[in-house]
């Protein structure tokens, strides 16, 4: 297992999908934030985070994700998550992320619902 988080971006016609692989902690969260803010600066307003290859997220990573969500909401956009492990899904619900971001079981469903 590795400590580093890798992020891949797939630009879509109406937004983008970010694929994360690894630990969403302070460093990993910042990496996601940097990519997300670049996309927001590029007028992306619908962002889907696919966490299928992420098994761990800590509280700092969660707080960074919340900041990203708030920033996107400020810009009038929306962020959604898909393919969460049961543990991360429950974590997001308890920490309140589910109140501000939609969560989908699969990427296909998310893309369809978000119109990406």
């Amino acid at each position, binding site marked *: 297992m590795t400590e580093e988080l890798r992020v891949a971006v797939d630009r879509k016609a109406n937004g983008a999908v970010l694929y994360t692989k690894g630990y969403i902690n302070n460093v990993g969260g910042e990496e996601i934030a940097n990519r997300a803010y670049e996309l927001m600066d590029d007028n992306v307003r619908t962002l889907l985070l696919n966490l299928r290859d992420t098994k761990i997220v800590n509280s*700092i990573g969660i707080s960074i994700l919340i900041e990203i969500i708030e920033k996107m909401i400020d810009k009038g956009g929306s962020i959604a998550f898909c393919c969460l492990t049961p543990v991360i899904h429950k974590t997001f619900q308890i920490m309140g992320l589910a109140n501000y971001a939609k969560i989908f079981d699969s990427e296909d469903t998310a893309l369809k619902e978000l119109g990406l």
Partner: protein
Amino acid sequence: MSPLVNQFAEFLHDLQQLERAALSSHGSLIFDAFAKYTPYDVSAVYLRDVRGLALRLAAKSDACLAPEVLEGEIESASPTLDPEPRHLIPIRTIRDHFGLVALNGDAASEEDLQMLHAAGAFAGSVLNNHRLAQEMREGDFQLKYRLWELESLYDIGLSIAGTLNIDALADEILFRMISLINARRAALFLRDGDKFRVYRSFGDTRSDFLDDEITDRVVAAGEALTFEDASECIFPGCIATVAVPIKGNNAVIGVLAAGDRETREGDVGAFEANELRLLSLFANQVAIALENARLHKEALEKQAMQRELDLAATIQRDILPKSIPTVEGIELAALARPAKQVGGDYHAFFQREGTLTTIVADVSGKSMPAALLVSAFHAAVQLLFAEGRELGDIATELNRHIHSWSAENKFITMIMITIDPEAETIQFVNAGHNPCYVLTANHMEQLRSHGLPIGILGTSKYMTQTRPFAAGSAVVLYSDGINEAENIGGDEWGNEAFEELLVRSAGNTAVGLRDAIAAAVDAFVGEAPQKDDQTLVIARSAS
């Protein structure tokens, strides 16, 4: 009238944006608002550091030479700027001071000065709201985080206690622990003899084994310990490490270690009391889960062993003769009683040109290895007899074959006899087996071993021995499960009792002799469990 008065509403509106803006942009927002709506040159904006009392430079004009930090309290701060500021407008509420704006240019009228101070107070009020909102959000986050910690501990108990696969369990343990205490690295060490070996790690560990000194300290403490002084002993490059023993029923069965706790500020630091408490609680759950997994693994191994024993028993059952052959002039009886744990007794019969050959053999070892060797022995015996070879030649070839095929410590004791009723002779080869008994009307002779057991030495050669075997004589072949049968006290039935019985029962039929021996053995053994295979083959020549 000053333009400040005309645009005061817009001025305040711009300052109000501070409430929603990020902390890092507050300085430039204030600077821009004062530059846009006042007739004065803005030299610099200083704002209080969120974590301290110091005033830090937040924005400045190109012309201003301003130090990064202003020393002293805000009330008395009189910054030495170049150019020297004509006006210092505090950004404050009645209770708190948030910073100040340094202005240059013409002297402000009394009216403008009041407006500037009012704007400063308004900005202070907005910053105060911003700070309160931040604190509320932080408080909300912490509340939810504590709830998440409790839920996690509860979930961990359920989740890992329900995971019986130790590999999946190890991953689950590491993931949960890392999340729970915001660690960057983690490792699960499990006991391996006197040491603790890395079973799973997240990130590199210094060594495959836990450092002896760390081990001693953790085991002695019995609870979570931090190692700021010797952090690198577990994770290379870590500045803080925590380790907690996993206490099983009777001993420490493992150690959980984590390195470098992340902080909200973006760096790493030491683990605090709350993390140590959580980790100790977590280690208790892990101990239960690991014990469950160990018991489950042992149960599976027992099942696998039983399946192996069943299979070995089947192999051996299938190899042994299903019935006693009918041979003219010879009465035969046999007994094969496998012990509960499959051993390696073997017997077989062959007929050739009016003669009868029988073998009794005992393979060293138990269970599947013994059953497989019996199987190989059986195949070779069948082949060699089919080739029509004589006993000594068969034994020599069997020895060469088994020696090259089997493991070094495996061997077979074997006795082969051939009875020729017409010639009234008995031929035999005894390769390290118990002597067999030849019974005549008034005499008992032992056919003793005259060679090493089969498989010991590849170059061994065996010669066929011949003795007279008068009509009415009987021969008794057996395995050591007969004469060494033990009673509940651990005493052996013994050769003496065996021979006395043979002398007493010498006139019996083959079947009668077999039954008498079996009954005597059973009577001696009583309720004691059968320890070894018991094999008897008795052949009596017709009178």
